[in-house]
């Protein structure tokens, strides 16, 4: 009886933490979900979907994009698409790593964890290319 209840409590606890990247999840909710939505679905052509996005699977591109944002007008034939995303310069390497790992763990079937040391290197490279 006691063992059963302990197992029950344990199952409850693990089912609450469905992602191993809790800080990433909280940061995603605070910084990204307003536009990209909690389920990563985005908004039509206006805001790209992050679920199974090729971009989030490339740490170099994704990290620099999150830091610097986008202020761009992309032309496609006669129509032009305005793409704007604010930059998040204040995020630390640890925070960026956790956000990327959270997104890819959740939505990318070929998930591979990125390491803080990797992201630290990328951060210096994207601020250099910005100068």
């Amino acid at each position: 009886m006691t063992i059963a209840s302990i197992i029950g409590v344990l199952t409850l606890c693990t089912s609450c933490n469905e992602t191993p990247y809790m800080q990433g999840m909280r940061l995603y909710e605070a910084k990204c979900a307003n536009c990209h939505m909690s389920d990563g679905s985005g908004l039509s052509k206006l805001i790209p979907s992050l679920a199974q996005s090729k971009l989030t699977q490339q740490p170099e591109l994704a990290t620099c994009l999150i830091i610097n944002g986008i202020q761009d007008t992309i032309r496609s034939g006669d129509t032009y698409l305005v793409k704007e995303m604010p930059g998040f310069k204040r995020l630390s390497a640890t925070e960026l790593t956790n956000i990327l790992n959270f997104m890819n763990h959740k939505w990318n079937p070929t998930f591979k964890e990125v390491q803080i040391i990797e992201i630290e290197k990328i951060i210096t490279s994207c601020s250099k290319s910005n100068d």
Partner: protein
Amino acid sequence: MIKYSALILGLLLTLLSCKEEPTGPLKVLGNTKMVDGKEVQHTVGIVNHYSTDSTLITNKELEKYIYVADFFFTSCPSICPKVTKEMMKIYGAVIDDPMVRMVSFTIDPKRDTPAKMKLYAENLGVDTKKWLFLNGDMDATHELANTYFVPAMVDKNAPGGFDHSGKIILVDKEGRVRSFSEGTDPATTPQLIKDIEKLKEEYKK
């Protein structure tokens, strides 16, 4: 015996927890006021705005339809995309209904020119005859928002420069506010869609 009483108690609890649909017509929201000794119901303020094809849209035009309104701006980095996502769901529910329209007012008319909003609507993939995106004088639009019970104002400290709420408002053909949902809370959208159906019944009689 104990088993049965537990079962009955369970059933009772389930029955009690089911919320009953409110019956009768939708209420008219807002306070009434006295005009020339007569009680007048609250209606929305003056609409004098331009659509994405630069047609002047007034209250008279809007009153041909039941419509669902929100106040937003295209460069809004905070709640707007979530609200627009809910507006999209409602749009999907009324797309084939000639009696219903969607209306989005920009609270940032300087940046959200009709041309920019046309592009926004195209990217959203919606028909701007069915879903109007309206541009008018900024101060007048912020005042207008208040008559829809949506606070909207310039606030340099707010993300994007404007402070506003994400309410989605249902307006009848007399310009009266009849229901609303919270655009930031997807759980409130189904009730608004039900309320549209309920409001339509009033015009079928």
